[in-house]
């Protein structure tokens, strides 16, 4: 949330007069093309980096970027108030139906890849966990570090808020182990942190904490835990290489949605993102799309 506020402030500087604007009208021949890009807090730093670079190369284009979460971005797209919605998850069937009802058919673009890193305090002696162990930890079946080979101590579970796309992804792929029929939920003891920064602070301070977050948010004061699909291994740490060769099990694509097939300036921008824009991806801590050479 703090991150989102910051993004709002930053973008206020570059949004200028570019308020409003109907979906689809961004590509008119007016000298100043302006459009809005809202959504996922995971993506917001990358979206800002892209917008800044693109605007410095194309001064006639104005892009205002804000965060708020994938759901916020998608809701704004459905309401027709933004041209691009950033999302760290796919739109749900309900959301697509609602958009169709408003006469908007969302189009999905994969813009980058992200690894969800599992992080713990640097003093934690646990080096690797299997997906099954992670699931047991987050559903509350494992409550002490000694049960997974660490020093004894209670496990303090940290999660992003339930509005975050990262939360939904982690629940589906890790807590429920990708099993669509599973009804497993996060343990009620899980601390829901309002921001990535909140998870970072607690993990740095608390020797018992375990958390998860996008690779781009992991700092050197946090220790990444290697994750294995099965107990036989291999235990893999997240990185651009292990995401691209699919050996790291907890990674996901990040999306931008547009209202209808993009035209004009929006189309040019998205074309740029999946080509030259990919060079910026690694600097912000994400994984560029395969084959883009970024």
């Amino acid at each position, binding site marked *: 949330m703090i991150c989102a506020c910051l993004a709002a402030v930053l973008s206020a500087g570059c949004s200028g007069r570019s308020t409003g604007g109907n979906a689809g009208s961004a590509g008119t021949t007016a000298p100043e093309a302006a459009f809005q890009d809202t959504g996922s807090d995971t993506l917001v730093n990358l979206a800002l980096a892209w917008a800044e670079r693109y605007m410095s190369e194309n001064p006639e284009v104005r892009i205002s970027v804000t965060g*708020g979460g994938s*759901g*916020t971005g998608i809701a704004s797209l459905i309401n027709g108030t933004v041209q691009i919605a950033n999302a760290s998850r796919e739109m749900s069937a309900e959301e697509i139906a609602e958009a169709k009802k408003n006469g908007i058919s969302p189009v999905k673009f994969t813009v980058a890849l992200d690894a969800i890193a599992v992080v713990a305090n640097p003093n934690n002696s646990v080096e690797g966990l299997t997906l099954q162990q992670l699931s047991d930890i987050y559903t509350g079946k494992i409550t002490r570090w000694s049960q997974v080979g660490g020093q004894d101590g209670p496990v*303090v579970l940290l999660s992003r808020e339930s*509005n975050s796309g990262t939360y939904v992804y982690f629940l589906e792929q890790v807590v429920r182990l990708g099993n669509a029929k599973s009804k497993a939920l996060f343990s009620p003891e899980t601390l*829901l942190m309002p921001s990535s920064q*909140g998870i970072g602070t607690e993990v740095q*301070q608390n020797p*018992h904490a375990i958390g998860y977050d996008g690779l781009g948010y992991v700092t050197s004061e946090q220790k990444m835990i290697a994750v294995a699909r099965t107990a036989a291994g291999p235990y893999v740490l997240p990185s651009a290489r292990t995401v691209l060769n699919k050996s790291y099990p907890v990674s996901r694509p990040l999306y931008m949605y547009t209202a209808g097939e993009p035209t004009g300036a929006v189309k040019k921008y998205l074309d740029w993102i999946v080509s030259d824009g990919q060079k910026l991806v690694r600097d912000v801590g994400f994984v560029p799309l395969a084959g883009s050479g970024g």
Partner: protein
Amino acid sequence: MSSVPVRARRRTRFSEFALETLIRVLGFSTIGFVGLIFLFLLREGVPVFFEVPPGSLFSGRWYPTFGIFGTLPLIFGSLLVTLLAIAMALPLGVATAVFVREVAPRWAREILKPIIEVLAGIPSVVLGFFGMTLVAPLVREVLGAPTGLTAFSGAFILAYMALPTIISVAEDALDSVPRSYRDAGLAMGATRWQTIWRVVVPAARSGILTAVMLGMGRAIGETMAVMMVTGNAAVMPSSLASLFRPVRTMTATIAAEMGEVARGSTHYHALFGIGIILFVLTFLINLAAATAIFQKKRKGGLR
């Protein structure tokens, strides 16, 4: 209006009438806005009481993303943090007020009062950071809790935030105790401490009660600092140990989830439902404070 003299000039009468009307409209519009806000809250929030059966609405599990809307942990979370905060702030606040008003020399009072007012102006985000980076680690290390993000840490920060209100209002209440009460106490041979504790403080008790209520109103509605410090786990507080476990308050829940929720969904209505509960609770607290003030007036003497 009728009190305007008949012979007054037309213009004066008109401008007076206009001014009076303007003030009246402004005054009533304030009430109107509060009413409209409440109506809006009702319109958006009441559907949840039909969409979710009361049995599960007041159960102990809050998983809004999965259609489980048990609000009890949130209500108890808010109450726990607020009451604990008041328990910490009340003795400290009243003692400070007594010191500032009754004990401190004049020059000290002149310095202390503005400082206390500055205290009230610290943004809650700043206090939240302070709680996250300083109070939470202390709570974890000193008290041995698994994590420092607990109801206790939240209450500590809230107590700090409620203190300026409590001190200022309690000090005003002490200030309005007539000098003759103190003189009478001292004349009876009571020491200064006895006079303060047995005469002045009891005479100001309804004012002090108001101070507590106002502080409580501030504490229960506080969002940002609480969200950063209490850990936000929707666990039912079950025993004394729950004080040193994470809790999730009503305000933090609304703030954290409202941005993401689909308009018109059950979750959306549920958040407004929590808003109604919160509104009613704050209203009751303010009502109690108002009653205390009213009683004070009726008893006479003390302003």
